């Protein structure tokens, strides 16, 4: 309860700060709260150190999140973007950073545009989380792919973008390339391999400690006993620079396609301060389009691998491949929005390490309805069902197959 109180006080301070910031020209801050009633069934949540794919494990009234998303124009072509998230849980401080970067946007002198981001930011993956505070515009809970992005991916470094809207094509087409070089983020992949995919609305902050399940292999006397029982996904472990390369094509307001190759170039045997480096590589494709009848379609697909530990019999001690995709259909009717999403996800295993079966596969359905009463207040209700086969759950005395369900009625406030 003390924590809730602390959060409330901090939020009040943030509110005042945010409101004050709006008065000053060139500074914009969006303050947001998601709170409401939630009912669920399924395994105990991963956020409590278990394996459940949902964020909560009790029914009741919850404060999902409070955030401040600040954009400051320090000069006409220089923007500072800082996003703070407040959570009422025990995974970190009440309020912490999710993103903080400066972006230089020099004025275009031709149909080519150049952008440079410096700081800590999300890799350019999600097509869902496009609103202030990295909120999903379409649902309360992000897809499995973007939930993983929120849990474990953050790039600290530089992202350089070149984009062109050629006049010779009537301005209908925009082509962009984003190249990022980053440090940190070496433990990324720990949660995906050892916990699996999840579906929720929690974004990891920079000093969060994200709990691992009580894995047999991280117990005293076992192969990875040096691993903390939690993950600090944004740490630098091996002093190697990672990168991603993303290419995008946008055709008017009709079609957007993005494709990324990501490699954190981590050294799989490196360990520092009880956190392992995981070599995480993936390819990502995202497509967004408007179908006839003004129905929006968003789909993303990701496949990759993550490895950690010494090579034993031609595979790293933990060596998994993963893939996920989702398709989301959404339609607005004046102040109403209806969205439906199908997620599919799996993790397969190449290593033979005993008592470390990380393979899983499953799918999720999300049905969401939002009513925007005003620009400030909206009400969302969402039903979510995730069915998973995860063989390693037997280590914890849990059934290796589960259908987890969640129902939410959430008030979203933005000002």
């Amino acid at each position: 309860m003390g924590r809730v109180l602390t959060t409330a006080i901090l939020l009040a301070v943030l509110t005042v700060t945010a409101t004050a910031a709006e008065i000053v020209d060139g500074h914009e801050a969006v303050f947001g709260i998601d709170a409401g009633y939630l009912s669920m069934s399924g395994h105990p949540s991963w956020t409590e150190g278990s394996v459940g794919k949902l964020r909560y494990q009790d029914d009741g009234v919850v404060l999902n999140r409070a955030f401040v998303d600040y954009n400051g124009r320090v000069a006409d072509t220089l923007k500072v973007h800082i996003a703070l998230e407040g959570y009422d849980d025990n995974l970190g401080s009440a309020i912490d950073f999710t993103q903080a970067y400066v972006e230089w946007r020099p004025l275009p002198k031709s149909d080519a545009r150049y952008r440079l981001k410096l700081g800590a930011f999300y890799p350019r993956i999600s097509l869902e989380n496009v609103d202030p505070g990295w909120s999903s515009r379409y649902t309360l809970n992000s897809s499995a792919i973007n939930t993983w992005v929120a849990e474990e991916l953050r790039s600290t470094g530089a992202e350089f973008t070149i984009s062109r809207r050629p006049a010779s094509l009537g301005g209908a087409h925009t082509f962009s390339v984003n190249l990022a070089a980053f440090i940190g983020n070496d433990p990324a992949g720990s949660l995906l391999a050892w916990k699996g995919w999840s579906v929720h609305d929690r974004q990891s902050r920079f000093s969060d400690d994200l709990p691992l399940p009580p894995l047999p292999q991280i117990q005293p006397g076992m192969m990875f006993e040096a691993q903390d029982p939690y993950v600090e996904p944004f740490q630098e472990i091996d002093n190697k620079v990672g990168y991603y390369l993303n290419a995008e094509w946008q055709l008017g307001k009709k079609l957007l396609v993005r494709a990324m190759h990501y490699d954190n170039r981590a050294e799989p045997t490196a360990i520092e301060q009880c956190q392992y480096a995981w070599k995480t590589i993936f390819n990502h494709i995202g497509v967004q389009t408007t179908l006839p009848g003004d129905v929006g379609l968003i789909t993303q697909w990701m496949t990759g691998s993550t490895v950690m530990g010494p090579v034993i019999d031609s595979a790293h001690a933990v060596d998994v491949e993963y893939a996920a995709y989702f398709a989301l259909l959404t339609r607005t009717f004046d102040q109403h929005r209806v969205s439906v999403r199908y997620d599919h996800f799996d993790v397969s295993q190449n290593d033979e390490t005993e008592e470390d079966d990380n393979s899983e596969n499953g799918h999720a359905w999300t049905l969401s309805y939002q009513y925007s009463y005003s620009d400030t207040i909206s009400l969302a209700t969402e039903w979510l069902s995730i069915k998973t086969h995860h063989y390693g759950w037997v280590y914890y005395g849990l059934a290796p197959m589960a259908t987890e369900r969640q129902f939410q009625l959430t008030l979203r406030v933005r000002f």
Partner: protein
Amino acid sequence: MSGWFLPRHICCALIALLGMNVAVAGVIEVRVVGSDGQPVQNVAVFIKQAGVPSTAGETPEPVVMDQRDVRVVPHILIVEKGALVSFPNSDAVAHHVYSFSRPNNFVLPLYKGTPPAPVEFAHDGVVTLGCNIHDDMLGYIVVVDTPVFGLTDEHGSISLSVDDAASNYEINIWSPRIRDSNDPLVQSVSAIPADDVTFKLQKSLRPPHDGQSESVGWDEY
């Protein structure tokens, strides 16, 4: 009584003189049809009198190009050379309007609310507008060297009045959606009333940039 009338030969001469010196105004109806036979709306149409330079005269009141819902409204504006265009911002967020289209390139400072002074467009040509904060914002100002211009309606049509029905005219159309050519398409007419002037496009149109879809977002926060 008969002395009240002018002699017939003088009368004929006068009529001939009037016919030479006083032009009869006419109307040119222009229609733009896509390769699929559908009318094309919002095409810039401008008509030049062959061999007669434009007499861009007084500076009129500024024309407005608004920024609303993170869009440039209207998406296409057509003005005569020398026109002033003001750029108010109806959004709660700041915009940073610029154009790299030489020689009409310009930059407005970052602003919201009260707009800066109107911009004069002293050269003809297409001016592409963007916002340096919202990359998806796009607008066009078609600056033309003639006072006879407009945009096609939902029927793909526009009627424009010209001063002299007996003169030769050059009819130009331009839209960013037209793929037949990036320069204006031109037809000449020499007799008015001629049949309606129809531009039948050979290639399919590019998709519109100013789509009204709100189901998915195209600009990240």
